[in-house]
């Protein structure tokens, strides 16, 4: 991975931004660092938070009081995370040996073109970060999903290997989402979502007017304003009402660096949360490698470049297995002599294919000595209707999340909300680059 990824990303970041700093050349030693404690939240959904189970805090949380007003004692995050990760409450399927707490080092800078956010955290594994992604395995007849994140029922039951990519995510608001400045990401975390209590059934989703209208098959993060009853995913507002809220800026930006699906092509994805966790308009840096009509992969590895046309189970945890269009991918050949146990990637990557608002963000991550160092590059002054516009002097509310060690959904470590200021007073102050 290392060489291709670095080369590609540097080339991309350099492209079309003559006045922008090269993030690799920023002297981060001169930029102040803020340590943000992250903790394992389990199933502490918004519905749990406003219920009597959140003893002595239900009414306050419901009326919008800040989490940190109460949760500000020393080691607050550490205690919560350690309690929950061990399964004492809010976690029905504890992952053995998982850490409840993680320290995230955050630095920020900006120039006339971009904001640069740098993150550092220690991975649980000291040998290798989670940079693989579940694959499609040929069983002699069909290509079936292989591997899954740690909270997946089959993985918990030991029927599938634990495979998932590390991620660094931020949610960001410019003051237009009510209460985000006080309650941060929890506004988007609800019962009914994947791996959360009262998981919505396929039938419930299929019968739901909003889900039908937006053509979604499951419930994902949503903001309270998108529902008539914020605690009931089924009470979605009309598409017209949602369009109005979006036009008024009532959504949060959701930006993710992904160790498998974006990092190798120097990218960071760009999404937003309103009625669902959407990707921005345009095309992502990664796309499904499954041809749903032919029920076979779209691309396989170029054996001349990759050393083999496919992976095997043995390669996981060992080999860099990014399938990159224009680099090591060739169109899938159904007659290439497929054997049971051959595995192909679930996603292929392409920086060249990425387009529109979805392709705004760039970035790179380097893992060394048990530590990820990730730099996200976000252009200032974006005017897309699915982006929050960053500008010099601006102050934003920001929440952080790290997915570490082959896990997704609630299996992350998260922060209480913070402020980010671009040359303005805030918890995290971005330094203006010379």
């Amino acid at each position: 991975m290392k060489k291709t990824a670095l080369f590609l990303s540097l080339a991309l970041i350099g492209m079309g931004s003559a006045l922008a700093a090269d993030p690799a050349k920023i002297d981060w030693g001169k930029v102040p660092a803020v340590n943000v404690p992250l903790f394992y939240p389990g199933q502490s959904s918004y519905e749990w938070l406003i219920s009597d189970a959140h003893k002595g805090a239900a009414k306050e949380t419901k009326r919008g009081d800040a989490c940190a007003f109460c949760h500000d004692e020393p080691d607050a995050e550490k205690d919560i995370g350690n309690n929950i990760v061990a399964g004492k409450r809010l976690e029905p399927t504890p992952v053995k040996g998982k850490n409840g707490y993680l320290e995230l080092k955050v630095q920020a800078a900006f120039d006339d073109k971009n904001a640069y956010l740098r993150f550092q955290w220690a991975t649980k594994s000291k040998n290798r970060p989670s940079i693989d992604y579940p694959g499609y395995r040929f069983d002699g007849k069909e290509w079936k999903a292989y591997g899954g994140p740690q909270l997946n029922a089959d993985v918990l039951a030991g029927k599938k290997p634990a495979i998932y990519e590390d991620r660094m995510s931020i949610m960001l608001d410019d003051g237009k989402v009510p209460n985000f400045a006080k309650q941060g990401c929890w506004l988007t975390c609800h019962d009914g979502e994947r791996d959360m209590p009262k998981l919505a059934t396929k039938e419930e989703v299929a019968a739901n007017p909003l889900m039908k209208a937006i053509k979604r098959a499951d419930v994902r993060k949503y903001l309270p304003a998108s529902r008539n009853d914020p605690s009931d995913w089924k009470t979605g507002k009309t598409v017209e009402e949602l369009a109005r809220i979006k036009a008024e800026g009532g959504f949060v930006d959701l930006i993710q660096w992904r160790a498998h699906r974006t990092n190798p092509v120097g990218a960071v994805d760009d999404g937003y949360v309103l009625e669902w966790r959407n990707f921005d308009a345009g095309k992502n840096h990664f796309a499904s490698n499954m041809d749903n009509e032919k029920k076979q992969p779209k691309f396989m590895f170029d054996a001349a470049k990759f050393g083999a046309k496919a992976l095997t189970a043995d390669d996981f945890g060992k080999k860099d297995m990014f399938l990159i269009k224009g680099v090591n991918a060739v169109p899938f050949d159904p007659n290439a002599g497929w054997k049971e146990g051959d595995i192909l990637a679930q996603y292929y990557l392409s920086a060249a294919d990425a387009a529109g608002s979805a392709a705004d963000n760039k970035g790179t991550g380097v893992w060394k000595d048990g530590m990820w160092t990730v730099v996200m590059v976000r252009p200032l002054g974006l005017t897309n209707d699915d982006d929050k516009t960053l500008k010099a002097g601006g102050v934003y509310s920001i929440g952080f999340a790290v997915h570490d060690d082959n896990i997704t959904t609630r299996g992350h470590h998260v922060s209480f909300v913070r402020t980010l200021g671009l040359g303005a007073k805030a918890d995290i102050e971005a330094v203006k680059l010379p």
Partner: protein
Amino acid sequence: MKTTRPILLAGCLFLALAGTAPVHAAVDEAAAQALAKKNDCFKCHAIDKTKKGPSYKKIAAKYKEKKLDEKEAIKQMIEGKKVKLEDGSEEDHKIIETKDPKELSNLAQWILSR
């Protein structure tokens, strides 16, 4: 760690040496804070700022003024009696998860000596 306030210490020493009263254990600050932390007390009470509940300093001052003692504070911790909130509503106070009189007394003394 045992930290002892000089005055208390002097008092205890005096009493102990004089042999006229039972030995008065000094407040074990670390134990008091650990118990309070474990029981979520700090989520509603800080040492010197108002959160959902009054600060420990304010509680200590009130007790001094009203000449209430540690017994009253322990009652608050173990009985879960109604507390009045700023907005006029009432709710049951948190019940502490220990019945050990020594631990309770130590925490009460710690609060009242803020």
